[in-house]
């Protein structure tokens, strides 16, 4: 029962982190590790800056 509740809560949290974009940098690093491109990875700050600029360079919200 206890583990069920814990699992449910942690699933909820990871969902919330995904929706809000809280885990975006972790995902980026994971992607970086998988693909191993020649350039060094962005720092958290650089990544976040680029992420925001990109998101708001198009229609991304509604009425």
């Amino acid at each position, binding site marked *: 029962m206890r583990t069920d509740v814990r699992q449910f809560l942690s699933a909820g949290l990871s*969902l*919330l*982190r*995904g*929706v*809000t*974009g*809280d885990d*975006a*940098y972790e*995902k*980026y690093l*994971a*992607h*970086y590790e998988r*693909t191993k491109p020649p350039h060094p990875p962005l*720092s*958290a*700050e650089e*990544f*976040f*800056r*680029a*992420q*925001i*600029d*990109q*998101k*708001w*360079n*198009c*229609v*991304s*919200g*509604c*009425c």
Partner: protein
Amino acid sequence: MQKILGILLAVVGGFALGGIALHRAEPINALWLVTAAICIYVLGFRFYAKWIETRVFVADYTRATPAERLNNGRDFLPTHRWVVFGHHFAAIAGAGPLVGPTLAMQFGYLPGTLWIIVGAVLGGCVQDMMILFMSTRRDGRSLGKIARDELGPVGGTAAMLGTLMIVLIIIAVLGLVVVNAMKHSPWATFTVFATLPIAVFVGFYLRHWRPGQVLEGSLIGLVLLLAAVVGGGHVAENPALAEMFNLSGVTLAAFVIGYGWIAAILPVWVLLAPRDYISTFLKIAVVVMLAVAILVMRPEIKMPALTQFIDGTGPVFAGKVFPFVFITIACGALSGFHALVSSGTTPKMVSNERDIRLAGYGSMAVESFVGIMAVIAATLLDPGVYFAINTGAGIVGSSAEAAVQTISGWGFPVTVEQMKDLASAMGESSLFGRTGGAPSLAVGMASIFGSAFGRSLLGLWYHFAIMFEAIFILTTVDAGTRAARFLIQDALGQLYAPLGRTSWYPSVVVASSLIVAGWGYFLYVGVVDPNGGINILWPLFGIANQMLAAIALSVATGILIKTAHVKYAWVTGLPLTWITIVTSTAAFQKIFSTDPKLGFFAAANDLSAKLAAGALPPEKAKVAGTLIFNQQLDGWLTILFGLLLWTVLLSMIRMSLRHLKGLPVPPNSEAPYVKTQLNLASLHVNAH
């Protein structure tokens, strides 16, 4: 098992919907609406959407999506389907589904409720899912780009122009909603103003102190916002401070315009992005809270099923129930704007085509449910109170006595004392003539939250609801201004290349100023209009939004016909036909009606005649010139919207006929098939 569930849902949903439709006389409980809505959404999702997925667009779970093929670890990124769902819902939900249904309640609860449910299940959800699917098959390209590729340059340009116009109108009308909510209300004004420094603080927090810790930053922002709501109450109690925040409509409009201009040229991380993070959080929390509170409280609906205003004499906005209930509700049932989001960030996140149903259809069903909750919040008020809040002084008279007399004369009794008590419970000086839908929604929400979670805090709940709406609206103001700026810069770049560079500062300033001047004009006129402005601007917005929906559905229908699914073209063809009839009828009436309440040109002529005859009171004569010009401009805009709609529709029909005759048409622009390498089991996709 599936079948039994389906039959059960159909029986319960049908029974509840029938109950609502046939229910007369005594008040009906809001649970009927909730039950009918949920059963029908689930039916639509499980059966209709599933059928569309397997038969009409034929989702292929072995096909790699753009998120996989173009994975860059940032915007193109395979994402869990519930995260895609949450993201898409947060992007489409805003103040639209709250305001539209509230205004439409002047016809009674029945027409609006039926359209919110049926329109979503057969129209809005289908549109959002179809465009999401089509964009996913086309590398996540935008609606305008898809329209150009599939229908040709004429359709593409019309879609782009339509997008620009709708953005200007939506910003103006939502700006007006927030101005009307803050007008002469120190508490609301303080709270809304306080959201700005809070957002900037969170912006710095996320950029410099704790880069990218979005959840943490949003929670801090949320706590500060709640503190601002409480603080506003103290400001309102202090006479000196209250006077500082007691501002007129014109002053507040000037603030919103100045704010919009500054926000548009500031980098996004300062204000726009942090506020959007906080609002995503707030949005999800409030929707869940409201649903729980409605289930706990089970309010009675006091508005009749139908009012006499279905004949077009309504005080909130002019026009008969057909076509204007469909125009007014907009985002709650079918919204063209959603097609822009469905062809924006969402298609770049979908990890498998089988997830499209949940994100596209499912999110819109939840949005529609938000519309139902707005209906409940508006109709649990005494109808007299609803009309007293939502009718402008130009219609019922500027004194409280005159207003209650007129409204009671319509058969909706209300007294001055009742309104006074309500206003003081909400911490406001007056609630008469607070048009725009936000205040009456906030009163309704405060009543729901108040009886579910404690009645003594009505004033806090009311201003919490106002802050909640304002935060969406201000996000729309900046995000819309930015989106329109990119469209303008794109166009200006054709004239002089450096102006097309989106980050060249002179170009940013020129383009932003043009956009802000555009919506600022409509906002200003709306504020000085003695009838409240909303009754002109909201129908104009509704027509623009439904026109954009018709454009999106035309593109979808054209693609269905072209990709050899002619026999299924009715899936989008049906809502397309309906919305074309609705939008064209509404546009026709707005242009040609000789009733000055309804027709734009008739209103302009009527006002000119009265001005020439000297029949206007001096304060109205002063703004008459502006109002006359504005009515004419609105008339011409409506003509433009009608032309845009028919241009896209005819270019789709022409393309389809050529295709059916075997003549050359622009080729299907789908990206070629690539087999997915992702582990299907890990993505929760049932391979059946």
